[in-house]
């Protein structure tokens, strides 16, 4: 019974949050709604028995990415309605025919691709019971250092690249050069 409650709670949080992200016109508000959607996604992972993934979702997305986005919004001027010194008030108006067309077409394409993927997966794995609830931490850890040790190491190189890239991009341009 609680399985259903947890699923309904997190799914509705995700869906409502995701819709609010696109429906609101305030950038800050949409960041907060995104937080709700990401939080709900963590709940969905928990429903599926992927406890470590759920916690990672909390740590990385709720704690990190949302704050990064809030900072990024503030970096470009918090409120679009107010004037700011970079003159970003002149954002091309959203919600005209062209944007709706582009958005609609891309949503259609993505939906088709996702549906195909899900259909394939569903065909191969007929619906059944979820695996026994054991610690996914140990399973992930064992996989990371046995079968996927190369991926584990390469991901550190990827993160190094991301770190250097972030530092280079965000470094303010030197004056007088």
């Amino acid at each position, binding site marked *: 019974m609680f399985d259903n409650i947890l699923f309904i709670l997190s799914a509705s949080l995700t869906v409502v949050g995701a819709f609010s992200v696109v429906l609101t016109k305030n950038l800050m508000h949409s960041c*907060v709604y995104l937080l709700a959607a990401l939080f709900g996604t963590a709940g969905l992972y928990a429903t599926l028995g992927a406890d470590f993934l759920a916690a990672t979702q909390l740590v990385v997305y709720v704690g990190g990415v949302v704050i990064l986005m*809030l*900072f990024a919004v503030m970096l470009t001027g918090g409120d679009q309605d107010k004037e700011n010194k970079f003159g970003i008030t002149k954002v091309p108006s959203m919600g005209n025919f062209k944007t709706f067309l582009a958005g609609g077409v891309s949503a259609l394409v993505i939906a088709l691709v996702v549906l195909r993927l899900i259909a394939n997966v569903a065909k191969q794995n007929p619906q059944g019971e979820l695996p026994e609830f054991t610690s996914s931490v140990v399973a992930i850890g064992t996989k990371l250092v046995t079968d996927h040790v190369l991926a584990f190491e390469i991901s550190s190189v990827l993160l190094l690249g991301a770190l250097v890239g972030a530092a280079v991009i965000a470094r303010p341009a030197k004056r007088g050069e």
Partner: protein
Amino acid sequence: MNSTIVSYLSQFEGHKKFISILSEALGFDATYLVAFLVFFLASFIVVNVMALVGGLGTYAERKISADIQMRQGPNRVGPYGLLQFLADGVKMITKEDIIPRNADKLLFTIAPLMALVGVFGSLAVVPFSSGFILTDLNVGVFYLIGVSSLVGVAIFLGGYSSNSKWSMLGGMRGASQIISYEVPVTLSILAIVILAGGLSFSTLVEAQGGMPHQWYILHNPFTFIGFFVFFIGALAETNRAPFDLPEAESELVSGYHTEYTGMRFGFFALAEYIEVFVVCGVAAAAFLGGYKVPFDLGTGDLLVNTLHLPPIIGRNIGQILQVGSFVTKTLVLYYIVIWIRWTFPRLRVDHLMTLCWKYLTPIALFNLVGCAVWLYAFDGQSVWELLSHLGGASSGGH
């Protein structure tokens, strides 16, 4: 694996009997209902005790600061001024609720809520004793890091939504400080996880013993340093002085909650005091042996064997001793946190960031490597075990 307070209770006969009686009376299997009721009651108790701890925390803060500054402190309401926090609560709830005209009303309302929800969520995994832990998740420590980061978002949103320059500065500083200090804190917890071999709080605590030399803080030199790195980082994450830059009252008026009045401010304050308790509890659980009681009194076996008590009573006395041990350690750390606040001057913003990124993070990484190598080289034995081996070997040689 995932043990909860329900799984602890279900080993007693009375619990099963209660379920069967209730099932007969209601006509369906009441296991579920009872589990829900137990969780609800336990959560209710924890939340209320924590609210009390938060309230008494404000009282303790004033009393201790008064002690340090040779003042009286609150002494009018109740004996020794003990009921001061209730008077404050009544005052806050009857204060006019002011939302600034230019504020972002939605975020202004959501921010205190988010802070409180984040802190309450983190209470679920605090190990009060081996039985009384609301839920012992497999990913306990990691979950706690994640859910308590909601407070950082809340502080930023509180600062942003007020549309006041002081609040904005406080919120910006708060968010960047909290996320920065999360790095050394996470890394020093990671070192403990390596030694204990698990992420759940029960694994962390059970790997330690009751006596101080069995605690992780004295396990090896790296964990000794790691405790201080963790504690400094935890101070900064909860915005306690000397890291209270987000609300630096001498420069930013009151920081991110400048515009908050009445109960809305009260929730920020309550969240802060409860969060201090939670991080002190994590420090106690991860480094100071948590709920472990010396001589294995916590399991109750000794009491049962020597005093010939019935096992149920013995176990429950053991549980009470465990709760006492955990709460004592946590409150001692709580006292130290307040003591530090009234002793050290506040850091400057650039010093704060330098301390985090140039001192604590490299030290924490070094500790992590040290602990990993230690576990591999000495099979996870502590310094004392190694010394006793040495002593044994030398005496055997004679």
